[in-house]
């Protein structure tokens, strides 16, 4: 099934590569990501004229190896991507279950809060919250989770509204099964498919959001190599032409998100063949 589509294979290959970089970064990277010699600064990729074979993808303005920084950058992107989605999912699914199952006041409150949050662009809220909390990995994860839970809540709530009318739920209530158990043990499994599909696309969106935040300098501290941060620092070189400083990290972001999107497509088709295109 997985073998059926070349795009899915490609996606898996990309993701395995990226995850391997993230997990094995200290072993895989040829240089230390934060150390650079000014003598080596702004060297082009090794296959070009003034390139140096020590630095495959060239160096940045401080002489740091681009390839190594990209490999280490995977750590931040992946960590934030997955953690924020798991956290947002936990919050959103729980609130969605509660809202859809109990209806009434709980439903109204949750949906109003959701509306308020959706009235603001996610990036804007994230910037504002990070301005309050300050930089740092935990803060970024928390912020992206806070700004991201709404989709889960809405979708789960919608599905709960239909599932709760089904006979087997009524039967469970009849024999006295408690509310919590019904929500998590009976309703939730029927809703899992949608959650997984949303989550996969959410990881892509979160990685893009984190990249944007580190581009603005608002993500983790200035020490830590992030793909977005690398693009930002390379921005000054647009005129002077050292394109490798921002192009390679940008490509890293793009390829990683591409892999996740393709995998998400496959997941969506797997769970609902009607949508298969």
């Amino acid at each position, binding site marked *: 099934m997985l073998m059926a589509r070349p795009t899915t294979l490609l996606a898996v290959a990309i993701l395995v590569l990226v995850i391997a970089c993230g997990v094995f970064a200290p072993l895989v990277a040829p240089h230390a990501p934060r150390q650079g010699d000014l003598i080596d600064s702004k060297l082009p990729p090794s296959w070009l004229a003034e390139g140096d074979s020590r630095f495959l993808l060239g160096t940045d303005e401080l002489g740091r190896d681009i390839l190594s920084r990209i490999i280490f950058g995977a750590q931040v992107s992946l960590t934030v991507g997955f953690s924020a989605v798991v956290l947002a999912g936990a919050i959103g699914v729980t609130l969605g279950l509660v809202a859809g199952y109990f209806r009434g006041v709980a439903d109204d409150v949750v949906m109003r809060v959701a*509306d308020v949050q959706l009235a603001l662009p996610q990036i804007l809220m994230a910037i504002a919250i990070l*301005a309050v909390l300050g930089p740092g990995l935990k803060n970024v994860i928390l912020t992206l989770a806070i700004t991201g839970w709404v989709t889960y809540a809405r979708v789960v709530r919608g599905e709960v509204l239909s599932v709760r009318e089904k006979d087997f739920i009524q039967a469970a209530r009849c024999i006295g099964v408690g509310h919590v158990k019904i929500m998590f043990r009976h309703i939730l499994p029927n809703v899992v498919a949608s959650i997984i599909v949303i989550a996969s696309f959410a990881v892509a969106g979160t990685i893009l959001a984190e990249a944007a935040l580190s581009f603005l300098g608002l993500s983790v501290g200035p020490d830590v190599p992030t793909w977005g941060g690398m693009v930002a620092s390379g921005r000054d070189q647009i005129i002077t032409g050292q394109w490798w400083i921002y192009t390679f990290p940008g490509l890293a972001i793009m390829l990683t998100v591409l892999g996740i999107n393709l995998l998400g497509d496959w997941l969506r088709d797997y769970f609902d063949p009607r949508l298969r295109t």
Partner: protein
Amino acid sequence: MSTYVVRRLLQSVFVLVGVTFLVYFILFQTGDPTFLSVSTDASQQEVERVRHQLGFDRPWYIQYAEFLSKAVRGDFGTSLRQGVPVTGIVLDRIPATLELAITALVISLVVAFPVGILAATRRNTFMDQTAMLAAVLGQSAPTFFVGIMLLFIFGGMLGWFPIGGRGQAGPGDELRHLILPAVTLATFSMARNARLIRSSLLETLGLEYVTVAWAKGLAEPAVILRHALRNALIPVITVIGLDFGALLGGAIITETVFAWPGVGNLVVKAIGQKDFPVVVGCVTMLAVVFIVINVIVDVIYGYIDPRIRRA
């Protein structure tokens, strides 16, 4: 129909109040901005005096209440940095952001519709697969990266377009400055909408009434455009409404990359400078725009699909 509209409007007001409340609350946690109005070597007494004068020593809910009563009259206070009324500063910049967002939306639709429709009708052909590959790439590329690459290729290397800012010297100059940022901003939406239109249309094309249309002997354009597309549009319209919010959000990044003098650029700088009144003013304005667009979209949606009105 009118009860539906009224209901949506009331909801919107509530949401707007909620938004300002949220932003005010969040910003307040960063500490008060008194220091912006005093010199760095002012004595503690001086700081306290200014703090009291500007009203920052009161509890935040009191300050919020005062803000709300003024805001309803259109007064968002004075910028702490620039000393001029916030409303003026923000209103100055709204046209720039709207110009960017609307142009991007138009570009996105103009490209996404033909591509999506063609891809759906020529499903699994080379054209379809290339288009969809391009679309998924477009959805995976971060906006700031697209912007920088476009700047590099068309601005730096080829020199066709200026590097940033908004043209003031007549329509030709304005257009030259507008193209790169608008295309950048449009990329994600364009890609996402193309995919959505394609899948929505494919789903509709499988339905029975379309088979009937074919059986009646209608030509392809009639079947697609007159019968299938209308119903395929329903999810697309919802997305366009959400799209505008995403475009406003993406505008924040794009404006920063291209030094475009819009609200997005302003709000990022103001957050950095802790210029509260400006931040709140910007956010409120952006929220208003977004809410208005959403109400319009919902009303259109309710008009097209009667099932929604009764919900």
